[in-house]
């Protein structure tokens, strides 16, 4: 089984259903007291060498929607980014990044890419913008020299590699034919560019491997390393310096790699990719696509503007804590520091002086809002359109923060025990969910999810604070794998102390980085990386450096083969990607 991910589902199968409830199955391992984060001036001791690693297979990855847009903006300018929908990215094992190595392009998807490509090309080459992207001035309607110069340079950035002369000639021929038929040089370029933008080498990032001449085995080519690094750390196509370093073969060399990694990690653009990592791991794509909808009669304060602000708020807290402050990952769950806009102020019931834009906010010591678990973004996302869902919230915490898989309910489960007249009249979620606990078929798994979610019941289906539900006081107490808490802040603190929290994040960041689940040959390295993460005070930049300089990131077992791929890399929750998406 992959990495350190704890498979509750596997336990279930082995131990029969009620075993699902044992907290040993969920938490695992002896409880450890988190070591206090070292101060900024502490000198780290000597770092042990990484264990030997047999990296997993390489697969091409389809650009995610944000990557597509960022790439267009980098290569053709911000104004060339066209609005519009893409074929939805798919979440596999909880990450779009992992799904990106599984998905292809459906007929309707290619139709969307094609429409987008034509619009992007039209915008990039319209009279207001063409001079910014076409460096030469055409001498006539047909000007092969100018066309090929544009196409060579643009294709190099879009395809992330130098392009051969015969390729340039082919694209130039298309531009020439079109320019001549349409009587317009730039219209010719537009036809060629829009075709380039549906090329599979643009839509997919091709990770290519070669024999490592020094150590044997397969490693990623220097060119592939360039876009592996840039899409991971900047969420976009390599810039000129990185692409050139890739072309010169410097990125297979540890020193050359380190120097580019340092540059990328110190850039402001790291923010973008850290946001993307968390948006992916926490499912914010649903917010970005406008799929989080609430009943306006029950939740009049909910709006798309508010939920988008809520996503931004959470990402700002993440970036502030992990990058600006270079802080401890675990404090994301205990921090009182936040950011507000006017629409958010309404949800959080706090004053926001600025009519536009963002303000810092610090919640009071006795406030229930502590850590990202109490953010409106995550609370609203894991709720139904008309009410909160302790089960969805608990499932999310288990899966996203502790890397534990909660299996779907068994198909043959008998729900007749809900046929209790009294159950419908119960006022609080805790009372309603007690029916689960009384049924052994449900109790096991719901005991994993519900207590966590019930700790967040002081926040309704859009994350607004409340003391009561249907007039009855809310009891938010519970325990996380034996660590008792009284309320949401207590849950945040218990999660921050949970021994699985840091290791899970390392695994998530790794899976995000390589676009697949870990393989057996990477397990030792992963444990080592998890220890390094703890040693560093749970700081993100060192973790990213650890990952991208590792053999697990730089090397591969070879191209992924179809016969083994689906089973070797699958998790029981692969269903997240399709069947269960947006529905439970």
């Amino acid at each position, binding site marked *: 089984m992959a990495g350190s991910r704890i498979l509750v589902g596997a336990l279930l199968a082995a131990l029969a259903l009620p075993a699902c409830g044992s907290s040993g199955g969920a938490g695992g391992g002896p409880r450890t007291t988190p070591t206090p984060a*070292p101060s900024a001036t502490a000198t780290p001791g000597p770092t042990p060498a990484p264990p030997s690693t047999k990296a997993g297979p390489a697969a091409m990855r389809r650009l995610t929607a944000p990557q597509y847009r960022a790439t267009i903006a980098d290569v053709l300018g911000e104004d060339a980014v066209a609005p519009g929908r893409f074929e939805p990215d798919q979440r596999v094992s909880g990450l779009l990044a992992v799904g990106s190595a599984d998905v292809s392009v459906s007929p309707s998807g290619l139709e969307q890419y094609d429409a987008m490509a034509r619009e992007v090309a039209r915008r990039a080459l319209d009279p207001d913008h063409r001079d910014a992207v076409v460096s030469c001035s055409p001498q006539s309607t047909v000007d092969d020299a100018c066309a090929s110069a544009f196409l060579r340079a643009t294709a190099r950035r879009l395809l992330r590699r130098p392009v051969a002369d015969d390729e340039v000639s082919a694209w130039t021929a298309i531009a020439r034919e079109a320019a001549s038929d349409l009587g317009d040089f730039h219209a010719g370029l537009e036809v060629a560019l829009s075709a380039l933008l549906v090329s599979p080498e643009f839509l997919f990032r091709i990770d290519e491997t070669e024999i490592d001449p020094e150590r044997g085995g397969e490693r990623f080519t220097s060119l592939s390393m360039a876009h592996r690094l840039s899409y991971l750390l900047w969420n976009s196509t390599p810039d000129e310096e990185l692409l050139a370093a890739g072309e010169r073969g410097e990125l297979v060399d540890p020193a050359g790699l380190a120097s580019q990694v340092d540059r990328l990690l110190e850039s402001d653009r790291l923010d973008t990719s850290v946001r993307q990592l968390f948006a992916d791991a926490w499912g914010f794509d649903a917010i970005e696509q406008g799929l989080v909808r609430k009943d306006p009669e029950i*939740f009049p304060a909910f709006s798309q503007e508010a939920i988008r602000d809520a996503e931004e708020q959470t990402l700002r807290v993440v970036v502030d804590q992990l990058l600006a402050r270079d*802080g401890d990952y675990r404090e994301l769950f205990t*921090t009182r520091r936040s950011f507000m806009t006017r629409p958010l102020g309404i949800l959080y019931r706090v*004053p926001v002086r600025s*009519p536009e834009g963002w303000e810092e906010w*610090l919640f009071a010591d006795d406030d229930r809002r502590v850590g990202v678990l109490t953010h409106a973004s995550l609370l609203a996302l894991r709720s139904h359109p008309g009410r909160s869902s302790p089960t969805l919230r608990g499932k999310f915490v288990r899966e996203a923060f502790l890397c534990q898989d909660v299996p779907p309910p068994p198909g043959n489960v008998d729900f007749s025990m809900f046929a209790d007249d009294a159950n419908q009249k119960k006022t609080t979620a805790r009372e309603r969910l007690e029916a689960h606990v009384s049924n052994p078929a449900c109790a096991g798994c719901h005991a994993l999810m519900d207590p966590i979610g019930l700790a967040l019941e002081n926040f309704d289906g859009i994350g607004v604070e409340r003391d009561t539900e249907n007039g009855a006081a809310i009891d938010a107490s519970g325990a996380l794998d034996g660590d008792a808490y009284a309320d949401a802040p207590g849950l945040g603190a218990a999660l921050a102390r949970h021994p699985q929290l840091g290791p899970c994040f390392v695994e998530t960041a790794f899976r995000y980085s390589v676009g697949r689940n870990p393989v057996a040959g990477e397990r030792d390295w992963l444990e080592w990386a998890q220890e390094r993460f703890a040693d560093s005070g749970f700081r993100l930049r060192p973790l990213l450096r650890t990952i991208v300089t590792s053999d697990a990131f730089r090397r591969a077992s070879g191209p992924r083969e179809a016969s083994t791929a689906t089973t070797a890399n699958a998790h029981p929750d692969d269903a997240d990607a399709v069947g269960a998406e947006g529905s439970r």
Partner: protein
Amino acid sequence: MAALLLAACGGSGGGGSGGGPGSSPTPTPTPGFERSLGFVVSSFGLLFPEVAGEACPAGLAMGPVEYAAAGLAVPPDDCGDPLSAPPPGFPAMLAPGSLDGFDLDAGGAAGCTHEGFTGPDGSAGIDDQLWRAIGCIRGFQEGDIVGGVVDAAVRDGSMTILVDVRDVDDPRNDDDVTVQVFASRETPPSGGDGSVLPWGTLAIDPDPRFHGSEAHGRIVDGVLEAGPMDVRLRLNIQIVEGELSFRGARLRLAIGSGGAATGGLHGYAPVDGLYDLFGRQAGAIGGKEAIGYLCSGLRRLLDEQADGDRDPASGSCRSISSSWRIGAVPAFVAR
């Protein structure tokens, strides 16, 4: 809920924990909401007295539409100089009635004699001479055009009204609070169902002329009473633009468990100002037809019923007592 309300406001006072290693706590940048209850008015309009018998036995006043319907020529009428035309003989609303208002001149202020209404507790002398003046004009009737336009104005940003209650130690019972009513140039936030959302932040009007005077108030079992105070509201409804101001005003708000409040604002409005809005400006843009009056009649009704701010020289009064109902939701009043 009220406790929660204070806690939410008090949140700004926090400055303690939460700091991580190597970081100092960030002071909250939005102080100034401590010990305060704020409201944004979400519903506003004339408060209608309950009249036992026939309110207008002589019928309603006639505007251009009514004259035309009766086959009569519309009398000459100049809204810029309303007294230049002969009086059309508009009826005032003189019937007795009851009203949940205030005896505004109880202190014996120099006014003009008038017939008050009866309070809900049977007390006499409840003042609302504005209704006596306009109570027999069609467009001011309950459910008619003026009420709808004014009510919408407080929600759509045309006449945003903020109520700020400060020095609150106990939101249910506190015998010494400070109350101030402000205009705002911002639009109250509205929800998916069109209602004004509670807990928005709204800044007071930057122009100090639209800051009402500070008044002493008290809260008894969740009912706030405050006054006397001066209030000046900025109004820009469609193309009627101006001020609605009150002197010697009293405010009463019953604060519900969810923080929303209902009540009334009662005070003397200058006749010149009222006439400018409802007569001169509205009259020039179709108000006479829509509401059903002539400026010559409206001006005279207001002058005749005016009961405050008596001019010792002429003996006539220059302001008129009025009663307005208020619905409000909790808000952060940013001063």
